[in-house]
């Protein structure tokens, strides 16, 4: 929304009224106690013409003038917000509990119905035609402590047998 044509107040600075806000340091020098700031943040004291309302307005004015109280109020507001989140979470606690119990029972039933099989690749031995990586040979050398040559010979003969079996099957 813009002003009307003959009304361009950009130069208007209201200098004559500036003295209203001069020498306000006493108002920022005396700090309200933490409990009053907490009440202000919680909005316990309603603003307005009631005697208690004056306090909220005065605290608001003090906070505007005092950076340390501004920081305190900022911290209190953050704490209040976290508190509200927790309160909301507590309201839904029975639902979370119910979901948790249902999930737990489902997992238990699933484990009993579908027991897990052996984990990892099947163990291969020397002569296994599917052993392309040579793991069976290594296992033979390192674990059994046998002579590698004997092992190799055995492996070669086993491989030949399985190949001939494969050819025969074809």
């Amino acid at each position, binding site marked *: 929304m813009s002003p009307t044509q003959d009304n361009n107040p950009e130069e208007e600075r209201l200098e004559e009224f500036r003295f*209203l806000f001069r020498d306000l340091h006493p108002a920022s020098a005396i700090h309200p106690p933490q409990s009053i700031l907490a009440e202000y943040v919680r909005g316990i004291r309603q603003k307005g013409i009631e005697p208690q309302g004056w306090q909220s307005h*005065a605290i608001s004015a003090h906070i505007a003038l005092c950076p340390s109280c501004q920081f305190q109020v900022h911290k209190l507001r953050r704490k209040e917000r976290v508190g509200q989140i927790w309160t909301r979470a507590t309201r839904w606690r029975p639902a979370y509990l119910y979901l948790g119990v249902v999930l737990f029972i489902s997992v238990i039933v699933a484990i009993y119905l579908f027991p897990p099989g052996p984990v990892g690749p099947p163990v291969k031995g020397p002569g296994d035609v599917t052993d392309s990586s040579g793991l069976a040979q290594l296992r033979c050398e390192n674990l059994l402590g046998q002579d590698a040559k004997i092992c190799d010979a055995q492996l070669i003969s086993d491989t030949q047998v399985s190949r001939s079996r494969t050819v025969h099957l074809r």
Partner: protein
Amino acid sequence: MSEDELQLQLKARAELARLAYGEQILQCTNRDPDEMVGFLMLDGEVEKARLWRAVAVAKREGSADYIRGMVAYMISHEVGERNRQKQQDLMRRIERGEVHLKDLTFEQLAGTRLRWKHIFQLVGKEFNPTREKQLIKEIYERLKKEEELSPDHESYTRQ
């Protein structure tokens, strides 16, 4: 407590009372200005008390929203250090129409340095700050004369 400390406390309370009255004017919940004569000048700041009363009378006699807009402008410019983040947030909220005069406080306005165009958005495009300022000045002079003519008046007895 020493006399100096007492003086400081009294001064602090009187300043806060005047500013609180200013916020009440801004939110349109202020008491009758005639009731506030003694309360606003507890520390002897007759001119400040008179000007706040003049603003309250102008709000009653003229257009309330325009005077409230002027108060919002003054607070945003004269109170607190400039805070760009806060300024941008408030300006954005005013532009979106999420903020009304009755919601504004010293705390929200301090350091925001609003431009007149934002005040126009709050109070309407017919607002003329210079004209409203003139009205307040006239009322201020009128109140001053009334105080001088009334020998029982609290401000008169203090001078």
